């Protein structure tokens, strides 16, 4: 654990130094790290929650006087509180909506959107499966929507020409953010799914089930595919423009849709003037790559992080005179 910490710290420090150098006086917040105190309140998306939670834990370890309260009311629920000025930072798994933006304006709250990671889901089959190379979104919907329960039971029902064998489904448990996301983009409504499949919050159970079953099909976070590439085959997803397989590139260039999306945090202008919030956000951006990978997301590159840090610095600087 110590080792990991030191590996993390080196690039983090390097980045801090480089950013501080570029922006000059914006380093005020950083210099105060030793004497920070107060509370940073975060709410919002349950998908971003694991990263924020991990960041908050590490941050509090280093800054004992700062309390970081992380809740998960969902992106929409979080933006409501954010627009009323009740929280400092909102975790979001989609960009802010116009209605939410006008709520912020009504309460004269400005914000900065910062990209923290990418979320991608992989649809996978057993390596012995030699028929299912790709699926359309419509086929996925037909297979997973609530109406399929007890009805769509064989591969041949999904596409003509596929074998007349039972299909064994594996997927995220109904309490996970992955489940919400998958059902939302595939079935059209969060939590709308058939229930007769092996549902587990433990991704290893899903991996184990699919790698031991020729007729299996399942979905989970991309990171678990990467850790088990030898035992699983990816299914390309066709959203009208040909089948695309998930990879770091296709997630980032947005060609792998609809099963990938960027994840954000929104920092309130009222909060960004506080040194503990500035320190927390900078710490977040410095550590998000490693921590988002740990919780199963696609991490950002060093350049992308540097660019987000630049945005935040500019944002903080723009607030300074108003204060």
């Amino acid at each position, binding site marked *: 654990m110590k080792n990991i910490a030191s590996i993390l710290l080196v690039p983090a420090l390097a980045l801090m130094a480089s950013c501080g150098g570029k922006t000059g006086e914006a380093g005020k917040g950083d210099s105060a790290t030793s004497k920070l105190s107060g509370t940073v309140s975060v709410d919002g998306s349950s998908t971003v929650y694991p990263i924020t939670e991990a960041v908050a834990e590490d941050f509090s370890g280093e800054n004992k006087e700062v309390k970081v309260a992380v809740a998960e009311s969902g992106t929409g629920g979080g933006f409501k509180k954010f627009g009323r000025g009740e929280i400092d930072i909102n975790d979001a798994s989609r960009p802010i909506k116009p209605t939410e933006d006008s709520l912020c304006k009504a309460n004269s709250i400005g914000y900065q959107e910062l990209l923290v990671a990418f979320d991608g889901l992989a649809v996978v089959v057993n390596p012995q499966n030699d028929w299912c190379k790709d699926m359309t979104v419509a086929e996925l919907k037909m297979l997973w929507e*609530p109406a399929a*329960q*007890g009805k769509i039971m064989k591969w041949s029902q999904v596409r003509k020409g596929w074998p007349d*064998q*039972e299909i*064994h*489904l594996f997927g995220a*448990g*109904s*309490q*996970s953010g992955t489940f919400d996301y998958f*059902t939302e983009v595939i079935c059209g*409504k969060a*939590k*709308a*799914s*058939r*229930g*007769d*499949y*092996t*549902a*587990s*919050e433990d991704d290893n*159970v899903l991996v*184990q*089930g*699919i*790698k*031991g*079953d*020729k*007729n*299996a099909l399942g979905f989970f976070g991309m990171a678990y595919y990467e850790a088990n590439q030898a035992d699983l085959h990816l299914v390309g997803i066709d959203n009208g423009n040909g089948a695309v397989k998930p990879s770091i590139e296709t997630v980032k260039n947005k060609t792998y849709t609809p099963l990938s999306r960027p994840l954000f945090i929104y920092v309130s202008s009222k909060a960004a003037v506080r040194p503990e919030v500035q320190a927390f956000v900078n710490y977040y951006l410095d550590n998000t790559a490693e921590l988002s990978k740990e919780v199963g997301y696609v991490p950002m590159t060093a350049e992308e992080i540097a660019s987000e840090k630049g945005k935040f610095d500019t944002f903080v600087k723009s607030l300074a005179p108003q204060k």
Partner: protein
Amino acid sequence: MRKKEKVIEIILAAAAGITILTTIGIIWVLLSESVGFFSHVSVWDFLTDTQWTPLFADKHYGIMPLFSGTLLTTLIAIALALPVGLTVAVYLSEYAPRSFRAVIKPLLEILAAIPTVVYGYFALTVVTPFLQKIYPDLAGFNALSAGIVMGIMIIPLISSMSEDALYAVPKSLREASYGMGATRFQTAFKVLVPSASSGIIVSVILAISRAVGETMIVAIAAGQQPRLTFDPTVPIETITTYIVQVSMGDVARGTPEYQTIFAAGLTLFVFTLILNNISIRIKRRFQQKYE
């Protein structure tokens, strides 16, 4: 002296009282939480609906798919453990030399002492891949290998209790059989096993109770997909697995979703209670027989 005796008596009674209080406590929790559940779902739906999807949008609360999973794995386990366990019992009581018996009996007991989580992974990573070589369409999670391994686990339960029952058959019967010119095999299977049948049945019923309540093996190897089927090659879910799944997941306490595990637990409890009562009745009859 009298006082000392009294104190000891109270301590003993308290020890016995703890077990009763625990049982009452468990029944109380099961019932009180189930009442909440059954105010949402009718008992009729619970018993007759063929789907179990309380955690999903289209909610169904039919216990049958879970119950069939439990029944299926239990049947497979008994189908293996009864013939093997009984053969072992007959061998040990009628054929085995004393010295060999002294070695093999403790070894058999070891089977019962292996942690069930080890059995679970044995089923998943050894038995299932082996069975897949014979039958390639077998799913990675299936009732078959979980049932087989569970059967191995309960062999000592059946063999040692059956052996006791065989041993308790009066000597006169055995000698009479030999006196009629019967062979050892005829004596064992035509005279002793039928005479000890009630004891053997009791051992089987207790083994069934054990298998019905078994959790880790089925949770690891049998799958987590409730479905009403008696096909042993596909993933299923047992009542116990469902309880584990919900209590380890992120289901919020106090919600109807959470209360489902108490309704499931109550079903399990009622089922094993019935089995145990049957076994007590048979045991009573068995005891009267030779008195």
